[in-house]
């Protein structure tokens, strides 16, 4: 099998070979092929140069990266804490509001009910009077017949 690998098969696996990511038997076969095939060996060299260019394009941050990071971390935490404090305050205020509403309903409930009854009562009397008038009116009409 070793000597029978075709150039096409070898070339498609050259990146894996370059990165030592192939199973040992396959890597061995490719190595044997490369020893005999200068074209494929040239391909491997080209891939190696490309990989070298990419890894050589590494950047480093400008000086003071860690200090800037530490400042941002502190600011982020302060912002997070202030947000959390606001959230706690909002929670407490809504609890107070709910308690106040409940107390208002319990404490003022009877007075409110009484007021409503007082308000509704005259209107009920008016309705009674209206009904009475209607009844009287219809009675008059019956009498006239």
């Amino acid at each position, binding site marked *: 099998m070793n000597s029978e690998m075709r150039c096409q098969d070898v070339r*498609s*696996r*050259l*990146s*894996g070979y370059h*990165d030592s*990511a192939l199973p040992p038997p396959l890597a061995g076969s490719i190595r044997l092929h490369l020893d005999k095939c200068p074209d494929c060996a040239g391909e491997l060299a*080209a*891939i190696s*140069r*490309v*990989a070298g*260019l*990419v*890894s*050589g*394009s*590494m*950047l*480093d*941050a*400008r*000086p003071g*990266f*860690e200090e*800037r*990071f*530490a400042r*941002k*971390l502190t600011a*982020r935490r302060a912002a997070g804490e202030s947000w959390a404090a606001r959230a706690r305050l909002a929670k407490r205020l809504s609890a107070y509001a709910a308690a106040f509403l409940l107390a208002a309903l319990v404490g003022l409930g009877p007075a409110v009910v009484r007021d409503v009854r007082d308000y509704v009562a005259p209107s009920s009397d008016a309705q009674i009077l209206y009904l009475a008038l209607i009844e009287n009116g219809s009675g008059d009409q019956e009498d006239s017949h």
Partner: protein
Amino acid sequence: MSRDRENTPPRPPEPTASGPTDEYLLWVAEARTESAAGDRAFTRLVELYRSRVVSLVAAHLGDADQAEDVAQEVFLKARAALPSVREEARFESWLLRIAYRTAIDHTRGFWWRRRVSLERLAESARETALAGAAVAGAGNDPESTLLRSERSSQVRKALREVPEAFRAPVVLRDIAGLSYEEIGRILNCPLGTVESRIHRGRQALRRKLEKLLP
């Protein structure tokens, strides 16, 4: 351990090819705690990984200045989420996954976030280089540093032109230094797909970078 963390704490040892060292794991464990000591330990991890995170983000955004802001955001996210991380051994790939996703979110963001000025790219890369910040064996000679910086900016420009499906695994491999298994976990694809995408990505870059290749 009798380490004096109040003064300048030592830099945690970088994970080796055989895996993270015990000391490194202790640093990550300490950084997980929500305390001043945790913040100090995390800051040292920032120092250890900033170059890879900035480079990974810059490879996706193309803009070195914006990449630094996004890298800060990556570390802030990581600091907030770190206490919930269970496996210290996977801290590196966990952090780089956050970096990758944050970078992708930015590339897919609003048009004004996505906009990349190539002039600004070259300018910012030049400034970064002149600030003496280029890594990977940069010499102290300003001219050679500038040359390297120009080449790096061309590589980043070429990377931006490669479709994301092929760019992402190349960046995760050649800049972040992750294994195919880790890349597969991050991109949610099988090893064979990772391998073929890396290969196609490199081939695409090779065509775009012909001038730079000897």
